[in-house]
């Protein structure tokens, strides 16, 4: 087992995994590189209970978590706001007409391939503040449970709910802002 062979055999899979969780190439490269180094160092510990790729993805996942931890200070200093401009509702608590969800059904959205929409989503996730990004990735992509995420991010369950709520509002609006608008009839 060498770094080059691991990179040849699993580089694309590691890249795809990291790409959906990190928003810049430098971080992606660092995490993949550290993953391969850790794999080479711990190769003797690979018991073969899972596939080599699953094992590498497992290491990469922890490298990404380490990166989030390294940014813990940023997380703590951030409020739960995703965007100052998130006044989706009017005084009475109903949708502001200019920000209300548009119909997607008759929009190009339906015609787009899922992977294209996914790329837009990843870009929108990349624009979230670190706290929201980490929460969305842990919850939606990694399907982690609330206590696990709260423990890692050092936040309460209520705070996590607020962060996820605002992040989801932002993601939906971000997709519409990216051009996913349809007829106003739904």
């Amino acid at each position, binding site marked *: 087992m060498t770094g080059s062979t691991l990179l040849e055999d699993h580089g694309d899979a590691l*890249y795809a995994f990291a790409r*959906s969780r990190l928003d810049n190439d430098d971080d992606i490269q660092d995490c993949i590189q550290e993953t391969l180094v850790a794999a080479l160092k711990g190769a003797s510990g690979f018991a073969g209970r899972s596939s080599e790729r699953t094992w590498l993805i497992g290491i990469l996942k922890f490298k990404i978590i380490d990166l989030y931890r390294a940014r813990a200070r940023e997380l703590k200093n951030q409020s739960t706001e995703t965007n100052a401009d998130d006044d989706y*509702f009017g005084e009475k608590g109903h949708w502001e007409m200019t920000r209300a969800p548009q119909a997607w059904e008759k929009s190009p959205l339906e015609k787009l391939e899922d992977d294209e929409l996914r790329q837009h989503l990843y870009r929108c996730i990349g624009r979230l503040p670190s706290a929201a990004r980490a929460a969305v990735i842990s919850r939606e992509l990694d399907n982690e449970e609330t206590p696990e995420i709260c423990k890692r991010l050092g936040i309460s369950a209520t705070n996590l*709910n607020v962060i*996820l709520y605002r992040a989801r509002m932002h993601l939906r609006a971000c997709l519409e802002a990216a051009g996913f608008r349809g007829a106003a009839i739904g």
Partner: protein
Amino acid sequence: MAEKKPLTGMRCEEFTQLASGGFEQPISFRNRIRMLWHKIECVYCRRFLAQLTRIRRLLISEPPVKAMPATMRDKIKMNLKD
């Protein structure tokens, strides 16, 4: 004892909060009825829920494997040799 909110007249803001929270924990029976009632009368919240569900489904599904950029592959290869 907290006063129960009426079954009708839910605000969109509360609907969206409950809908998002519903992905984390179960929604009470009463709130489900309130949401159902609101959904009947509010097209925007119907869209919101459908769009949120679609976004979640997409994120949960496996992304297609994209090729690592050649420059990144070369850099990693070079760094691994060092």
